[in-house]
């Protein structure tokens, strides 16, 4: 698409730059801040005719104002006696949109489906804002797709917006990326696979082009969480059928199978995206990480840059020797992410920070 260049303030942090870039790609505008740092929001219900703020379809202002005085494009009485409001301007649209008074609220403006427009790109942005004795919990891996209420057509429209936004980001990073898709998937599962695939590719390209590992850290967590859940469920099922060998105990066997399965699936996932995770790069799976200079080491399941991930059936705390060992490793992780099967509870995966 041809858009004016995004002029992002020079002093913005990498996280802020990503946020502003994402808003610019989506709306064509960079949010404006006052000198005191307050961000000015665009109000889509601003009435350009008289400068007043309406309350949207069916609201008090609509009832108070009554039918608009002028007809034509800006308003008037429509078919069947339905009174239309004046045109209101939405971000990113070239002209006013006619909103019938009393009509159901369009799903893309507010309410529970605002998450459909979120595009988290770091583990910090994926945290759940609630207290936990263990550490800040993480959202479930597929909550990026929490679109409730609307039917398939509206869901598809929202997912398509997400996919196009991510693809646009990718092309900003790599104009040679050629994605061929003849038809946007209709099923929810297909749409999720498409968006997950594009998100992972965007994260890999962000690492390659900008050297920024944070998006890949988030996508690694999301993929590993899905793989952990699958391995746990399938492991439990097969153990009940006595279809898996046990050495010490069922729990020990289940834990080992989950660990190995997640590592193996991640290796395949990274390999598909051209990421080498067996050598000296920033992505390492089950490799020794030196602690000090005396030959001691720790072996995190997964390491992406300065974040270590540990797949576990049990909760782990900072005081445990294994976790202390991770933080003492020479690569000085900024955080250790504990990934546990979601079946064990709502916020079972969480972050331990340095």
């Amino acid at each position, binding site marked *: 698409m041809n858009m004016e260049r995004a002029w992002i303030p020079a002093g913005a942090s990498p996280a802020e730059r990503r946020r502003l870039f994402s808003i610019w790609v989506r709306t064509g505008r960079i949010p404006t801040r006052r000198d005191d740092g307050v961000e000015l929001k665009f109000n889509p219900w601003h009435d350009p005719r008289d400068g007043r703020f309406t309350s949207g379809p069916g609201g008090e202002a609509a009832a108070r104002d009554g039918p608009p005085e002028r007809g034509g494009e800006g308003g008037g009485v429509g078919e069947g006696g339905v009174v239309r409001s004046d045109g209101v301007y939405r971000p990113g649209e070239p002209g006013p949109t006619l909103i019938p008074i009393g009509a159901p609220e369009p799903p893309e403006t507010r309410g529970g489906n605002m998450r459909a427009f979120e595009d988290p790109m770091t583990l910090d942005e994926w945290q759940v804002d609630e207290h936990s004795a263990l550490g800040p919990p993480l959202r479930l891996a597929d909550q990026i797709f929490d679109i409730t209420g609307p039917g398939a057509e509206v869901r598809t429209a929202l997912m398509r917006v997400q996919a196009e936004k991510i693809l646009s980001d990718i092309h900003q990073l790599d104009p040679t990326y050629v994605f061929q898709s003849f038809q946007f998937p209709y099923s929810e*599962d297909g749409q999720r696979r498409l968006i997950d695939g594009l998100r992972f590719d965007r994260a890999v390209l962000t690492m390659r082009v900008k050297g920024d590992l944070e998006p890949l850290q988030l996508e690694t967590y999301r993929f590993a969480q899905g793989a952990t859940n699958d391995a746990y469920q399938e492991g439990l099922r097969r153990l009940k059928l006595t279809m898996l060998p046990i050495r010490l105990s069922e729990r020990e066997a289940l834990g080992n199978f989950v660990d190995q399965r997640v590592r193996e699936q991640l290796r395949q996932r990274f390999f598909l995206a051209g990421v080498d995770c067996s050598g000296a790069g920033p992505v390492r799976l089950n490799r020794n990480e030196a602690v000090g200079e005396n030959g001691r080491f720790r072996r995190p399941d997964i390491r992406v840059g300065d974040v270590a991930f540990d797949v576990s059936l049990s909760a782990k705390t900072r005081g445990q020797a294994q976790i202390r060992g991770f933080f003492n490793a020479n690569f000085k992780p900024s955080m250790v992410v504990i990934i546990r099967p979601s079946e064990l509870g709502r916020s079972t995966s969480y972050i331990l920070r340095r």
Partner: protein
Amino acid sequence: MNDYVFRSPLASGAPFIPANLGELDDQLASMMLEAPTFVDRLGFLPDQTIDSRFHQLDTALSRVKPKLGAESYAKAVELSARAKALFLSDPDMTNGKTKEGVWLLDEISQLITDARRRRVKAKLRDDEGEVTGD
């Protein structure tokens, strides 16, 4: 039913082959959770089949043959062929042969574990210069 398959332009098209004993052992455990059909449940490996999985396994075995030793390598290849035949004869997990095949994969895993123990005992180093058994 999967109606859409994402194929990344970043993919090379070549299959992933485990590069050392540890990665091979992880693949064996993963296969035990996929037998007998080896259909990918996560949806990112749409072309995975029993044939592709055993191709990965057999190719990886040939890569680590020097570390396994000739006798263990020959045993592992024989176990692999028998396991695949068992899985093919029990696609719906109804006649007990899937379980037999899983136990044969576990025997291969034991051969790998033994080889890793020997390497650690002999202080043989891996490709990163560490004594890990790989």
